[in-house]
């Protein structure tokens, strides 16, 4: 088990894409496989304070109505919320890196991000260094 690990680049900021990243991340962690998610570009919005609450659906958001409807259906079908998925990801050892180059481009400071989510700051070098030994890498 020791030599397996997964890395995920989360480039997208849609509610559904963030959800996929955290679900897959939780899945690997549940099998004892370490996971690092590198948040960059639109994905960085998810790390903003209350970012998970504000993330729009990537399709049919309809000014938030789409997200409201999917959240209601998630509750009905006992699917964990985005906040719960992020929380369990962190609790079972998931690691989050925020891309500082994108932060500069978008004028996002460390104080704008949710410090309970971010483990580290870095750029492509850190992602590549972690990924070079990973057995699984995904781009979302």
């Amino acid at each position, binding site marked *: *088990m020791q030599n397996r690990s997964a890395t995920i680049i989360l480039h997208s900021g849609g509610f559904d894409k963030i959800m996929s990243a955290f679900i897959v991340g939780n899945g690997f962690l*549940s*099998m*004892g496989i370490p996971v690092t998610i590198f948040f960059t570009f639109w994905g960085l919005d998810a790390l903003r304070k209350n970012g998970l609450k504000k993330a729009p659906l990537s399709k049919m958001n309809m000014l938030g109505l789409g997200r409201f409807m999917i959240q209601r259906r998630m509750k009905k079908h*006992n699917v964990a919320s985005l906040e719960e998925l992020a929380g369990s990801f962190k609790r079972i050892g998931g690691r989050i890196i925020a891309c500082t180059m994108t932060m500069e481009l978008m004028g996002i400071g460390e104080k704008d991000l949710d410090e309970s989510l971010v483990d580290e700051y870095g750029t492509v070098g850190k992602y590549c260094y972690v990924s070079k030994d990973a057995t699984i890498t995904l781009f979302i």
Partner: protein
Amino acid sequence: MTPKVKTEVDCISENCPMPLVKTREAILRAEEGDVIRVKGTHPQSFEEIPMALDAMGIEILEKTKDGELWTVTFVVS
């Protein structure tokens, strides 16, 4: 076989991926040799929790299914 269960993990009515996550959380909290029983109703998890245990090299002691309700019992190693 009636293994002495130390921890029961209740995943009844929980959906993907929480049964897997709760199983992993229980394993992280447990000590080697502890017997854990997970019970739930999410159909796919009855198949996928054993997959996760296989990936971690954990042996299953018992699997039961009664209607919707299933249990998976294993020893933490």
